[in-house]
């Protein structure tokens, strides 16, 4: 793209003296120093494969690490942000590790949390970019710039989980595959392993990150390094005395694996490529390729289109406004529906209650009548009883009278007889 500046109507001009704008790159760099840099690395690999150790080794520092269990029900991601400084360069580094990757019995959905995380960072940048009042220059860029995919050192080939995951991620992030724990593979096995891995990636159409070749200053070293992919790495923060120096190494009974010895592993190559040579390109690719793709897909999904040149800016806004209106109308409709339903339910309940009330009333009436009937019956009985009683007492009185009469008559008779 060196022809970027030569377009129609622009003529090249030669300067008659020193103007001074050759200080522009310095001005730009100074500004960046003031602002600081941001770099985000995502490490995907099985539990215990050495992700955290490699990060510690790469950045020469002790990040807070937890040993994860192997019993995570789902894959999770843990992101941690650190402020590092080297000479006058301030770096805000975010390291994202997968937790529980490859531990589940069913790994079909293992890639999803990773994809979701990456998309979330893109989304949040997109949101900021679409805001009306935005501050992109102060925005903490959390988009993943590099993804280190840790391959198990089986020595044979990639696992299907590896292929599936990398295929899902290759259009979203710069993938740099690394062979972890490379001290378990012999040199000859390693060579065959690397070839097998690369051919499998190619045959499955997985696009890994290629170190850029367009700048002559670094094209040569990048070409060489592209041929060494995937890097076989060993991580260690422990120092072992070798010769008269203390070096980062892993000590075994049969020897010492030195991390920074290029004959032992590709750690130095990884550090060189990831940090010293291509960090800026990784950031740029993330922004100009992966993010743009996400943005394009997302906006198209939401229904935006670039219409004819006459109505470009308005169309985005109009479509947005139209969608917003649509959404509001939809909301209103749903609200109305709910209100109606509510009113309906209330009516129903009301009528139900009324019905119940009526029923209750009629029962009450009925009971009242029953009660009245019984009362009447009882009264009747009482009356009869009273009648009975009164007639009985009458009869008794009459009987008594009769008895008394008969007694007196008998007495008289007796008296008469006695006489």
């Amino acid at each position, binding site marked *: 793209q060196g022809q970027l500046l030569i377009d129609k109507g622009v003529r090249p001009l030669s300067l008659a003296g020193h103007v001074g704008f050759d200080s522009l790159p310095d001005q730009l760099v100074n500004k960046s120093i003031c602002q600081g840099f941001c770099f985000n690395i995502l490490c995907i690999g099985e539990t215990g494969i050495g992700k955290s150790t490699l990060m510690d080794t790469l950045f*020469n520092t002790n990040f807070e690490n937890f040993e994860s269990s192997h019993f995570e029900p789902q894959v999770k991601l843990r992101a941690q942000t650190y402020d590092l400084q080297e000479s006058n360069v301030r770096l805000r580094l975010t390291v994202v590790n997968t937790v529980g990757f490859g531990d589940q019995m069913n790994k079909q959905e293992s890639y999803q949390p990773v994809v979701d995380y990456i998309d979330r960072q893109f989304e949040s940048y997109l949101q900021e970019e679409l805001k009306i009042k935005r501050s992109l220059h102060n925005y903490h860029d*959390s988009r993943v710039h590099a993804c280190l995919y840790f391959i198990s050192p089986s020595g044979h080939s990639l696992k299907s989980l590896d292929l599936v995951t990398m295929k899902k991620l290759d259009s979203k992030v710069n993938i740099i595959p690394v062979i972890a724990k490379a001290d378990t593979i012999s040199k000859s096995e390693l060579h065959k392993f690397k070839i097998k891995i690369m051919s499998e990636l190619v045959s499955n159409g997985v696009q890994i990150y290629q170190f850029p070749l367009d700048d002559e200053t670094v094209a040569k070293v990048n070409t060489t390094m592209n041929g060494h992919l995937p890097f076989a790495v060993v991580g260690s923060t422990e120092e072992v005395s070798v010769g008269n120096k203390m070096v980062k190494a892993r000590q075994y009974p049969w020897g010492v694996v030195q991390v920074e010895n290029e004959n032992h592993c590709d750690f130095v190559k990884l550090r060189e490529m990831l940090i*010293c040579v291509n960090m800026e390109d990784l950031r740029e690719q993330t922004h100009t390729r992966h993010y743009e793709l996400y943005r394009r897909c997302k906006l198209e999904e939401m229904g935006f289109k670039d219409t004819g040149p006459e109505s470009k800016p308005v169309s985005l806004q109009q479509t947005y406004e139209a969608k917003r209106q649509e959404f509001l109308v939809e909301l209103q409709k749903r609200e109305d529906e709910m209100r109606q339903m509510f009113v309906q339910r209330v009516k129903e309940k009301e009528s139900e209650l009324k019905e119940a009330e009526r029923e209750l009333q009629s029962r009450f009436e009925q009971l009242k009548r029953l009660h009245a009937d019984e009362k009447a019956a009882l009264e009747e009985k009482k009356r009869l009883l009273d009648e009975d009683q009164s007639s009985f007492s009458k009869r008794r009185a009459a009987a008594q009278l009769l008895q008394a009469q008969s007694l007196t008559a008998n007495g008289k008779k007796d008296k008469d007889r006695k006489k």
Partner: protein
Amino acid sequence: MSEAVVPDAMVSPAVGGLHGEKAGGPAVDFSYVGIDAILEQMRRKAMKQGFELNIMVVGQSGLGKSTLMNTLFKSKVSRKSVLATAQEKIPKTIEIKSISHDIEEKGVRMKLTVIDTPGFGDQINNENCWQPIMKFINDQYEAYLQEEININRKKRIPDSRVHCCIYFIPPTGHCLRPLDVEFMRRLSKVVNIVPVIAKADTLTLEERDFFKKKIREELRANGIDVYPQKEFDEDAEDRMINEKIREMIPFAVVGSDQEYQVNGRRLLGRKTKWGTIEVENIAHCEFAYLRDLLIRTHMQNIKDITSSIHYEMYRVRRLNENNTVMASAELERTDAQYPSTSESPSSVTC
């Protein structure tokens, strides 16, 4: 769906910085990571991409605008030098003419666009002469915005926004004219204005100092914020540097693209009967300060302020305006709120 953990709070590593130092013992070989190599990477990327700079010159005809541009960039960048048929006639209305050049210095490539405004301030009735210029500046912002909100957008959006507007004040020696005040008042809100006193070789040093003081007072009195604007100073160091500059503006400049022999050296200057004025001699005129400000020290800052402040302000206005297109009643209220910007009858360009 499993939830990613929200990033933890910022943690500085336990070891302060990446310079590992161990007291005593054998030499430690593990301190350098290589993070500072990113500066070199950035520089490389910048050199490869090249830079863009758009400067507008505004002032009455005859004030030496073209000559100054040629002097600044040590080549024939002005329109007059380029066009074979250099028009000597003053145009009837203000025209906006821009011409671009590809220049290179020590591997740094730059596309320089000089935007000329012939006819400014030359008419009998100069009311509203800032309008076409304002419209041009806003049109550049509009073009950038249009490209930015495309679905399919270019990898690098071509930047035609006016980064800096050099305003030429005629060397009357007294004070600013109403035209100057009006123009700078309106345009300082949308673009970085760098006022200069043109043809400063007609002023003695005392006259010049007096004139400059008067101009600064008038700018302050009218609330005109020229570059470097006070409110955009980032930190104490910035403020200190910029205060020194603010005490010197407007720069009194003399332009020349002819070299003369002075004291055995070939220097850019103006030869008169009473002496030769050396353009790059700070005892004679302040051209060197202007050049240093514009090119050697503050060029990136000028571009940053244009993109992160002026352009953003335009974008906010524009996007808010679109939102109110739906409610036409509100649109009138918005127009009333920004009278200084919606000059043209069409309310789309604001």
